[in-house]
């Protein structure tokens, strides 16, 4: 009996491991920045290049930082959702225009809608490196104390919004 049960048991263990492996996404690299202070930045704004926005400007409120670019195809997928979220007034979204060209970026926003309270320009991707950006779009939820609480790698989806992001925002907004 053991003779037949052992290989079966080993096969089952292997199968379970492989099955779990299938559900993992190798692109989702857990960010070491979760629960750490959001890296500081001082960047020029997209619409009014002479104005500068600092990350400290948002201290005291829960906000989202969405990394986007006009060359980024997946950004188009999530964009309607971001516009909808911005219109709902639940949370201000700030856009980090990543390694983009100013005119095309502005045109892109005109065409697909502008959900951003302010878009800031990261021409050479330096702030992107500070935030550990490696695939655009990426979205960060930052709390009132300026701590990163969540990072969404890849486009925001209805699912991720309803299951993770919105409940988290609610929780963070209720914090002192």
């Amino acid at each position, binding site marked *: 009996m053991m003779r037949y049960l052992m290989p079966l048991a080993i096969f089952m263990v292997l199968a379970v491991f492989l099955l779990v492996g299938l559900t993992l996404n190798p*692109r989702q690299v857990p960010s*070491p*920045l979760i629960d750490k202070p959001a890296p500081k930045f001082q960047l020029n704004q997209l619409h009014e290049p002479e104005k500068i926005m600092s990350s400290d400007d948002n201290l005291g409120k829960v906000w989202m930082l969405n990394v986007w670019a006009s060359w980024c195809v997946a950004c188009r997928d999530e964009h309607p959702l971001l516009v909808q979220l911005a219109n709902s007034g639940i949370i201000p979204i700030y856009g980090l225009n990543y390694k983009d060209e100013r005119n095309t970026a502005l045109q892109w926003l005109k065409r697909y809608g502008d959900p951003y309270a302010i878009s800031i320009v990261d021409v050479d*991707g330096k702030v992107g*490196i500070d935030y550990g950006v*490696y695939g655009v779009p990426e979205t960060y939820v930052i709390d009132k104390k300026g701590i990163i609480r969540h990072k969404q790698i890849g486009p925001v989806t209805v699912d991720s919004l309803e299951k993770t992001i919105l409940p988290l925002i609610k929780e963070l907004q209720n914090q002192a």
Partner: protein
Amino acid sequence: MICQFCNVVRAIIFTLVLFLVSPFNTWAKEAIPVAEDPEIEKRMLALTVDLRCLVCQNESIADSRAEFSNDIRREIREQIKANKTDKEIVQFLVDRYGDFVLYNPPMKPTTILLWFGPVILFMIGLGSLVVYLRRRRLQIEDVALSPEQINEAEALLNEDKKGKNV
């Protein structure tokens, strides 16, 4: 005699064309871009062969031509130029991208299984092989034919002989 200054004009035009054709960088020696400093390049390469490109995960940052790796290489060059040590540079990247950028994961409580898993599996395999071989040897020694079996075997052999005789 129509063209008195022809030679002069020709000479001037020739020089102008030469100027236009010659690549600009031969006019004056420009500062060497950071990327071309062999010392920095060497250190940068030595560092990046052990770093993973997060976009193309099976390539090192040294090998990858992805935009991401380009940026990281540039960042590392700048940091080398700013006299950062290799350790500081790697820490800078780990702080932002996590241990995943390292092809050599550090030994930590979470990575113990990763480091020693193969050894443990090997030991289990070796152990079960030894147990199996021992058990098999015992089985072979234990097996002796019972008198009935011997009779049966002899009967079969005799039958065979009879068959041939007939």
